[in-house]
């Protein structure tokens, strides 16, 4: 080592230090993704600068755009909690999208059929949404605990079953007869989530989302519950031996997570779209998975990451119609950065192993 020249050593240590920097992987994956998208834009005959400019302009410029982006962040954050919390207990909940859908439709059932003081009805609707999300995970949870069946399999199946159930309801039993496509009636004005203006106009769901994310952070990192949860997630047999009720812990985390997904659907239905219709939902439940994954150990990171995904989501529409690129480019934007991120991250974390061997 000492024999090496000073410059080489400096370069070497510099390279090593950069790789160790926390920004290395996210920045590299974003840059690589932008590079790929830029190449695609050039192939399509649009300048990459215009494309990216339009993306951010569409998401952040002006109150209308900013409000859309903030509102978009809410279901993403909640849906990622639905993955994050169960994952701490070693349960990979891929069923977020289905839980979100049934949550939304349940909230609609309440506001369309119950009348009373708005505060009561809205609270009831939100609780119904959480309950529905929770119910949608009961089968996979029981199959996991009682029969040892892989939750990846069962939550995927529940996803599609729930989505088809909601489709059946909005094109059948709950269909707005005057509409030509499958949709429920709109939620009555008085039963929508109240909005407030603080720079931009958003609905109160943002507080619920922030509160739940903060609560999750507190729960997982500041309480004994969190410590136990981690034990259950990493070494269930050891946790069992040390007297932790493993199954109960898993059940609590999973049910809590699924309730968050249901809540995401309910909030989105009552706060933004006001109707559950065919194609009403973007893949929030699916996007929640990479968000939770990117957040890693720190659940507070969910908020900025969800915001970033919201930028891609809301900016993409403006980008599409201003530059004329195919709408499909939006999906590349959503998939590629995560794909690169998980790859780089895995590569980096596997590197020391290789060197040591």
């Amino acid at each position, binding site marked *: 080592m000492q024999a090496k020249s000073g410059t080489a050593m400096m370069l070497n240590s510099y390279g090593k230090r950069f790789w160790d920097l926390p920004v290395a992987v996210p920045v590299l994956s974003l840059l690589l993704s932008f590079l790929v998208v830029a190449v695609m834009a050039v192939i399509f005959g649009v300048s990459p600068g215009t494309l990216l400019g339009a993306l951010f302009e569409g998401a952040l410029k002006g109150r209308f755009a900013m409000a859309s982006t903030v509102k978009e962040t809410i279901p993403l954050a909640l849906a990622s909690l639905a993955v994050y919390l169960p994952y701490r207990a070693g349960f*990979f909940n891929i069923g977020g999208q289905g839980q979100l859908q049934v949550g939304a439709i349940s909230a609609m059932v309440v506001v369309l059929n119950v009348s009373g003081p708005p505060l009561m009805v809205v609270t009831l609707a939100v609780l119904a949404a959480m309950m529905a999300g929770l119910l949608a995970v009961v089968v996979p949870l029981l199959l996991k605990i009682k029969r040892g*069946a*892989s939750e990846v399999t069962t939550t995927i199946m529940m996803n599609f079953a729930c989505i088809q159930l909601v489709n059946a309801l909005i094109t*059948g039993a709950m269909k707005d007869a005057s509409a030509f496509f499958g949709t429920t009636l709109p939620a009555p004005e008085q039963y929508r989530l109240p909005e407030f203006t603080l720079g931009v106009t958003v609905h109160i769901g943002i507080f619920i989302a922030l509160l739940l994310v903060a609560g999750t952070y507190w729960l997982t990192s500041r309480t004994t519950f969190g410590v136990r949860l981690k034990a259950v997630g990493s070494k269930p047999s050891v946790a069992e031996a040390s007297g932790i009720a493993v199954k109960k812990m898993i059940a609590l985390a999973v049910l809590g997570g699924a309730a968050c997904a249901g809540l995401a659907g309910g909030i989105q239905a009552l706060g933004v779209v006001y109707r559950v219709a065919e194609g009403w939902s973007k893949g929030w439940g699916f996007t929640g998975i*990479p968000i939770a994954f990117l957040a890693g150990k720190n659940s507070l990171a969910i908020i900025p990451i969800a915001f970033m995904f919201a930028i891609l989501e809301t900016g993409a529409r403006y980008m599409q119609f201003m530059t004329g690129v*195919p709408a*499909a480019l939006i999906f*590349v934007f959503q998939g590629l950065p995560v794909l690169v991120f*998980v790859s780089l991250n895995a590569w980096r974390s*596997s590197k020391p192993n290789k060197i040591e061997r």
Partner: protein
Amino acid sequence: MSEGWLAPFLLATLRAATPLIFCALSVVLAERAGVIHIGVEGVMLAGALAGLLGVVFWGDAYVGILFSLLVGLILGLLLALITVYLPSDQVVTGIVFNIFSLGVTSFIFRLAAEKNAAVQALIPVMPGSVFGLSPFMVLALVLTVFMWWFMFRTGPGLKIRSMGEDAHAAHAAGINVVITRMLILTAAAALSALGGAALTIGWVRSFTDNITLGRGFIALAAAYCGRWNPLLATAACILFGAGEALAFRAQAAGEGLNPHYFLMIPYLLTLLVVAVAGKGRAPADVGRPYVRR
């Protein structure tokens, strides 16, 4: 009318089942080796596009199939690098890959359509088709039997299954888990792509954005429903195909039940099978990244 009803129904069933069978077999193959294959939908979509482009630009159904296989192999290698070699999380990678594939296929399709208008037109009927059934159907059945024989009656098949049960034990027994899993996943992805080609070349002879519309996930359900057994998985595909054919017919006959309820059947049935069978016969090591110790 009664006798004229059955044959078209069976043909419709087989048409719908054929692409599913390839994809279900690919899931069985990958997961028997211990790699979860959620990316099946994305690879199927890419295979569907590649098949069509192959036919349009080289003018031959079999070149289209080869091109589709090639794209499947490349994507399989990519997935294998990410999920087996590095290794990163198989589920996250699969889900994100599906989104990515949807974007890229739609983008390439648009570019191709701007270059050559024939991409939008119907491609010729695959040679060797009878009664609207393409040779893909026969290939699917042959592959099913072959896969079963390979998996349960040969030495390599046994090794692959042992790898899916416990990778570290397999490693101890002298199997190079990483290389083998990468090979298997690559082969499996080629099969998924073939399923896509069966959809575009063998069935509807055209492509649109997201033409698979979740059929890869139905294949996933079929593989689970068939307890990772090629014969049972294919049977499940045919059952789901029949359900799809029945859904059209019930709708056309004006039956009251909403078609979306029919579309729930594959998933609910799979849940039921999982509930009854539990963990039994499921490859135990599926989804766990294998890190060399």
